[in-house]
């Protein structure tokens, strides 16, 4: 061996190089993230590292595998969960309301051979799944009312979208894990501005009602105070109504004719008759009484 290398170094170098190439070609390294379909002259013959539900990572499949060099080609297909995004589109609900919906689906290629045969590349797969997702979402949402989109029911809707999408996706060797509505928006223009109007008027209504309630409460508080004052007065003055009458009259005279000393009271002229009680002593004792 050594002698041969010594004698034919170039030839042995070439042989070594070719051998290395052969080894590399024959024993491809499959990473964890990929599945590989082995295609022999255009015909898929076997799969390396195929996804199986429940199999732990690193169990088998990935790593060094073999192939017939040059005759068999590897087609790499992602093993991980991937996503397809729906184009934003308008959906009309049964009550004729428009809604802009954005959804996404997560899928995994579980049958790489089928996927390779039916779709070719991953890009083509996404391109085919996207419109299907869009139409399924539109179909399902078109069957329900606008309001139920905003309820827990919506998860049920998504499940049925997933089921029907799955039925189609299975033909491509794809399993759909999950379909979710990302956003449901009102379309720009009339629907959005009318929603704003509704919100605005609702707030104005709320503002008015708050003010009215405040006023109502204020009125009740005042009335209660009035009532309590009346009760207090009655309890106290009721002890001797006759004296109260006199007492209050005296206070009233002072108030009316003199004031409380702070405000100037308009000048008053009083015309008194001698019969007035105050003047009864004016005509001397024994006068009219």
């Amino acid at each position, binding site marked *: 061996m050594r002698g041969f290398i010594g004698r034919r170094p170039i030839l042995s*170098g070439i042989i070594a190089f070719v051998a290395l190439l052969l080894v590399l070609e024959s024993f491809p390294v499959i990473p*964890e993230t990929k599945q590989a379909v082995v295609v022999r002259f255009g015909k898929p013959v076997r799969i390396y590292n195929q996804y199986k539900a429940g199999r732990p990572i690193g169990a088998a499949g990935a*790593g060094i595998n073999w192939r017939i060099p040059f005759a068999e080609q590897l087609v790499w297909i992602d093993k991980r969960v991937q996503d397809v995004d729906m184009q934003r589109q308008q959906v009309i609900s049964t009550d004729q309301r428009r809604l802009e919906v954005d959804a996404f689906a997560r899928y995994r290629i579980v049958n790489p051979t089928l996927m390779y045969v039916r779709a070719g590349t991953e890009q083509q797969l996404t391109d085919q799944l996207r419109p299907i997702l869009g139409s399924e979402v539109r179909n399902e949402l078109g069957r329900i009312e606008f309001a139920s989109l905003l309820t827990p029911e919506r998860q049920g809707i998504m499940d049925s979208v997933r089921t029907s999408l799955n039925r189609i996706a299975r033909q491509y060797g794809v399993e759909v894990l999950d379909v*979710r509505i990302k*956003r449901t928006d009102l379309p720009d223009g009339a629907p959005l501005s009318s929603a704003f109007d509704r919100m605005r008027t609702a707030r104005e209504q709320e*503002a008015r009602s708050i003010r009215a309630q405040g006023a109502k409460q204020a009125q009740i508080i005042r009335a209660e105070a009035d009532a309590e004052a009346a009760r207090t007065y009655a309890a106290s003055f009721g002890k001797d109504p006759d004296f109260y009458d006199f007492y209050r009259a005296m206070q009233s005279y002072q108030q009316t004719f003199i004031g409380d000393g702070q405000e100037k009271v308009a000048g008053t002229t009083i015309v008194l008759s*001698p019969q007035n009680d105050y003047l009864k002593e004016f005509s001397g004792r024994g006068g009219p009484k």
Partner: protein
Amino acid sequence: MSIHLGWGSRVRGLFADTKGPWGSGSGDGGSEPPSDDGQSSGPWGDTPRRRRSAIGKGPNVSTLDEFLRRSRARFGRGRGGGLPGRPDRSLVLWALLGFLLIWLVFTSTHSISPGESGVVTTFGRYSRTLTSGVSFTLPSPIERVKKVDVQTIRSIDMGSAGSDDLMLTGDQNLLDLAYSVRWNIRSPELFLYQLSQPEETIREVAESAMRAVVSQVTLNDAMGDRRAEIESQVAQNMQRILDSYHSGIQVQGIAIKQADPPDAVNDAFKQVTAAQQDAQTYINNANAYSLQLRQKAQGEATAFEKVYEQYKLAPEVTRRRMYYETMEQVLSKVDKTIVEVPGVTPYLPLPEVKKQQQERQQ
């Protein structure tokens, strides 16, 4: 082993040569001519020495013809080149051996810092996960280690302030929401191998979960006291969805940074606040009135009772006394006219009286 090493160097030499004619940059004017200086050195001689000798040789003609001619000459001569017994042959071997040793040491010991995990793959297949500390693996082409930071909590901001990113609430109102998602990697091997775009997935799942939760609460709840509840519910939902993908991601929490009505209707919302203030003002005023009135009533009632107590002791006298006192006070301050004659309708010169008053006032 030595055979392999020899091959290695040979292959390297071959590659180094083929670069020559195409002038790939290697430091000396862009052309690296193969050695053809007639010495006994074989074509597979060590590369560095040849390079050194090449530097001094001046400009080289790097055409394809030249290369072919030289190659032919070299290949023809190659037969005579004896590999063993070359003076620096062992030196090359030692250098390669040293390089290999360093390679082995560097690619088989791994120091994983705290908060990191090392995911080990054997020829691409996942084999194990290393925890922090120093660990050993097989050298590089066989086993590879990818370090993943599992401790750091990352944050993704969703929906920015002032953007037109509106959400529909359960009562069909619109809400301008900004929030952030904090997450870290729980199991690095799942994180690496299960999702093709982990960060994008988190974004979409967060958006979906947040919108689903917000669509089930009212606008006031979302803006007000149920925020914390929404945050925890979204975090739970996200975790559930991400777990269903076996993503290896742990959602640490959601923080709602801003939950406002859209700009277009913000004024109306401010009016509500103003109305609340107004209503409070009304109530405060009424309370003040109430307090005042009650105090006044109590004061008056107490005053009356005090007087009444005294009055009861001597009713007639007290009554007259009070009467006279009041009359005194009243009549002393007013103009008085006493009409003495009964049966005569008195003529009251009211303008006269007024004039008198005005005079008095001046």
